[in-house]
């Protein structure tokens, strides 16, 4: 999966979690939590959705790696390298 594809997947997952989420003007280097008003329960959903779709397990201590859109992409890139977009 390319970096752009991973980015799209993250946005798709968040959109799926929150029907109201608004991505216009999103700063890829600022915390998603503040910009999209996500709480810890929403973050758990992102983690669980990644596990369900791509069988990747993210340990709780690594959740901070998912703070911004860019950090998500950086963190997931090696894990999703060999995965093709379905």
């Amino acid at each position, binding site marked *: 999966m390319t970096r752009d594809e991973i980015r799209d997947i993250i946005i798709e997952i968040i959109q799926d*979690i*929150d*029907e*109201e989420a608004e991505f216009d003007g999103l700063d890829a280097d600022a915390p998603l939590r503040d910009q999209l*008003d996500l*709480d810890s*329960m*929403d973050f*758990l*959903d992102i983690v*669980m*959705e990644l*596990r*369900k779709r791509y*069988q990747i397990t993210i340990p*709780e201590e690594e959740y901070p790696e998912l703070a911004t859109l860019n950090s998500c992409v950086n963190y997931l890139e090696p894990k999703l390298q060999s995965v093709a977009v379905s």
Partner: protein
Amino acid sequence: MKSLEDYQLIIIGGGLSGLAAGIRTARFGQKVLILEQHHFPGGLNSFYYRQGHILETGLHAMTNFAEPSNRHAPLNRLFRQLKLSRKKFQTHEQIGSEIKFQTHGLRFNNDFSFLESEIEREFPGSLDHFRNLAMKVQEHDPFALSKWQSTREILSITLRNKVLEDMLLLPLMVYGNSEEHDMDFGQFVIMFRSIFLEGFFRPEGTIRDFLDMLVEQYKKYDGEIRFQTKVAKIVTHKDRIQGVLLESGEEISCRAVLSTVGIPGTAHLSDWPLELEAYSGKMSFMESISILPSSQRQSVRSDSTIIFYNNKDEFHYSCPDTAIDDSWGVICFPENFQALEEGDVFQVRVTNPANYEIWRQAGSTQYEQLKTESYTKSQQTVGKIIGNYWKGAVFQDSFTPTTIERYTAKAKGAVYGSPLKIKDGCTPWQNLFIAGTDQGYLGIIGSMLSGVTIVNQQLLQ
């Protein structure tokens, strides 16, 4: 990931906490089975039909009203967690409710400032004290694990007015306190927020539609549910659960069990050596439902959604010494929510505290007599408040603590379960967890959040 067990998770009980937990786990691909002893889901919050009318049981209203835009409100968090559309969920807010004591009355609705103005009117000089209390409520995190604190003590210091204290406690205790006399402050905060700060509403349709929506969502994620299926035993081996044994003799294996049948019920199924007396709640109730023709609307004073009344000088939240205590209770008009269409009939539901032991010990003939006597006593008292509503009723039915015990798996008919809760859901077995009433979050929204929280904390990681 293929597992050797039949299911990854078995949930005992298809009430609101079990259904919410089921949706949450099935949503992420786990193989889940819910076992429900009755024909219908819902547990305490269910329904039955008499003479073509649907009668709802359990809570009179849902609490925790929030507009869809308020993302962090419990109601909306719950909907996101279950992947249900909050926008499509139509709600009707209460018209307004009332706390009625001999000397004072307070009205409230889903606008907190209205309650503030009522307090200023009825208790001049107390508004600042009440605001201090509201501030304490806002600052307190009821979900952090903390030790028991006396609500009575905090209220007496903060409010400095016993009547006001009793008045505020009546709705909050009767809708969600498993302890007698006093209440844990954490629980008080949850109830204060859900009732005074957020408020009462009901969904479009009936509780049946609401339950159908949950079951449908659960099945969409391939969740399985079996009705009329009683669990005889939770099969344990050392510190782990291996599965469950059904009354039919069938054995089903699983990786984990989530029990929503209360601490005493779970202890019974698992041979958990517990001092059960400490986990048996004393607060049970008798409820009577009357169906009245709409022509009677004029003769019944029914401009409120819910009336909480107390005819004594003080309010004592405790198990009565008699079959029921009609000196305090709740009168609910289930049709009195905003923008509901008037039907041919309307209902009045009356709830009074009741003594489980007296009802249990009554033999079958005595039981019927006790029911009639208690009902008559209650309707005389309530008649003085709203008018003689029972005259002309087309249908009446009552349920008692023993009915509650039989249909809802609540030991001794204690609707709010054990006075001691297990907040983290853990048991002596590594893979057996408790959710629902005895985990601690109460009410329809609360019990569903309980199911979701225990799944998030214990079963998804």
